[in-house]
């Protein structure tokens, strides 16, 4: 009981109430995130509908291999995150190592992502910074790249926040996570998986439509 009361905030009557509240709060937060990304997906869908040729051309300029590898990398991080949650819920201290591993894999993803950004920049594909495209629909191709940078950039920011949260978890983890109290790790895990799912959609809409044009 001592461990439980340590973590129980004063506005709650029981640990169950606290756990359910925190998890519900995270789910609703994820809904707001879905709406945030949703607006950009809506913009993408609209323009893709109007300018299919330009968007396919833009898509053919993507680094397909790096994108595919990155997708695999991120899915691996979801796996390690799940293991961390699994061990935390059972009070096994080795979950700490899986948190560290998850953060490292997340950083690997960002490393690959920013290498891609740099390559696009070198290719003059960064809108607003000397963007060049030889096709007649160059404006629309630029629009494609603008959406690409905004949406994947927004995703990278979220992943960065996720990495920070996972690393911050190491502090309370070392103090009082046990089989009675692993809610924060569960909730951050929800967030992490959500960010990964967003990436799967981003990969599908940006990398795949023009893959046959290479």
């Amino acid at each position, binding site marked *: 009981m001592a461990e439980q009361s340590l973590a129980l*905030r*004063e*506005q*709650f*009557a029981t640990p169950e*109430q606290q756990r*359910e*509240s925190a998890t*519900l*709060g995270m789910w*609703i*937060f994820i*809904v*707001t*995130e879905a*709406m*945030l*990304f*949703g*607006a*950009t997906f*809506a*913009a993408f869908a*609209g*323009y893709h509908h*109007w*300018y299919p040729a*330009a968007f396919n051309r833009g898509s053919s300029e993507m680094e397909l291999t790096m994108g595919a590898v990155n997708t695999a990398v991120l899915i691996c991080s979801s796996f390690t995150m799940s293991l961390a949650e699994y061990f935390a819920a059972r009070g096994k201290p080795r979950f700490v190592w899986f948190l560290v591993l998850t953060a490292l894999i997340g950083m690997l993803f960002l490393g690959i992502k920013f290498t891609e950004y740099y390559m696009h920049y070198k290719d003059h594909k960064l*809108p*607003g910074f000397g*963007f060049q495209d030889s096709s007649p*629909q160059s*404006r*629309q191709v*630029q*629009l494609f790249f*603008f*959406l690409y940078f*905004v949406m994947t950039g*927004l995703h990278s920011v979220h992943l960065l926040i996720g990495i920070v949260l996972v690393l911050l978890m190491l502090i309370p983890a070392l103090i009082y996570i046990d089989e009675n109290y692993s809610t924060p790790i569960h909730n951050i895990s929800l967030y992490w998986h959500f960010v990964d799912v967003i990436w799967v959609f981003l990969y599908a809409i940006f990398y795949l439509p023009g893959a046959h044009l290479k």
Partner: protein
Amino acid sequence: MATHTLPGATTENYLNSEDGILSWLLTTDHKRIALLYTFSITALFFLGGTFALLMRLQLLTPDGALVDLETYNKLFTMHGIIMVWFFLIPSIPNTIGNFVLPMALGAKDLAFPKLNLLSWYIFMLGAAVALYSIFRGGVDTGWTFYTPLSTGYAMGYVVMAAIGVFISGFSSILTGINFIVTIHRMRVPGLTWFRMPIFCWSMYASSLIFVLATPVLAITLVLVSLERIFHIGVFDPAYGGDPLLFQHLFWFYSHPAVYIMVLPAMAVVSEIIPTFSRKPLFGYKAVAYSSMAIAIVGFLVWGHHMFVAGMSVYAAMAFSFLSYMVAIPSAIKVFNWTATMYKGSIELSTPMLYAIGFVGLFTIGGMSGLFLAAIGIDVHVTDTYFVIAHFHYIMVGGSVMAFLGGMHFWWPKISGKMYPEFLGKLSAITVFLGFNLTFFPQFILGYFGMNRRYGSYAPEFQDLNVLSTAGATILGVGYILPLVYLIWSWKYGEPAPDNPWRTTGLEWKTPSPPPKHNFEVTPVVAWKAYDFEAQREELHLG
């Protein structure tokens, strides 16, 4: 700092349990945070009101004698930005909602008290950024930030103002999450969903809109700012974009935002009318479901802001039809409030006067909204004062009336003091008269073609404009009056009993002002909301 309570004065409550400025700035008590919000938005309300008064003075003469036209553009823009995002959106949810909701559920606090405090800081940061953009010279895009005006042509500090709104959006999101989780998980034993006061249902519905709509506005303002700063983007045709996309995204937030403003007002009125009619709310379930219906259908009507902006005739018809649909749940509420009063034992106290005023003005605002939902009439009166009059009947006649009514209703609980009843009634009547004198002439002006957002107008419109300006001054007096006597009563008012209105809500079953954790003993609920009969003896209803 030492706590010093006068011996034998008042018992310990949330106001005197801790002392010092830090005990306020670092508080996680929902009641204190509600007061922090109240001070902040009251100041912003009077700032936004000052801009409105300057606009009305400008429009006293056809040529606009007061300011030049560029300044006038900035005046209506800043009036809109401040009133919408820094007063109306947080007005009732973050003040009255914050204060009452946990107590109405019998809870000690919201589910996430620290997030609640954080939301106030985020709000203040957003407000500070927006105010800074005013002091640097203002913005002249109108509160709607329409592209490509806002991204290319507008002068002023558009990005700064947009960032201010963007930041304050996160305070809305945090509040929404907090309220939803609190209503789901913090109800006391016995308080089932259908025993909750309608106040909680309406707060739940508006919280849904907070969490679903606000993120869309956030990302839209980010895109506007990127386009304005880097000259790349998705809205300007010069970059291959489409300005209509902005309007779709903007109104996808901003139409539901209208329901963020009015659903909490309905929450307040649904508490006041049964209390002062001494009858349970008529058609409880219908009112509860209609709150949810407004929140859901409200997401499907945004296109009616864009009938003249260019959309297919089929889309326009669909949006017109859906806009008619959203009027149904609103009408259900109006009929149920009226039916609650029917054969009730009505007491025309200050909150009741405000609430009855709300019902009448909201009905006029809502009905004129149906005119605008009809495509033919909308084309005729688009961007005229008819639109201005319509949404002011909803936002001022509706939300602000309810805000003031709610403030009076819960003032004894908040401050532990009674306000002066005579002055209260005087203010309610002054606001009602001043409001109608200000805005009713604008329906006529708009119908005859006076455009909104112009600092000058044709001479034949002058008579009605003079009336409108005269009304605005009366309205101003009506708003200053409560500010003065409520502050006065905080110190000099009669001490309030626990339940001055002899009503049924859980928040009235604890001392005024409440202790820090709201209830000495966690209450158990064994009755429906508004069940005066079951509590007849306890409430001394005779």
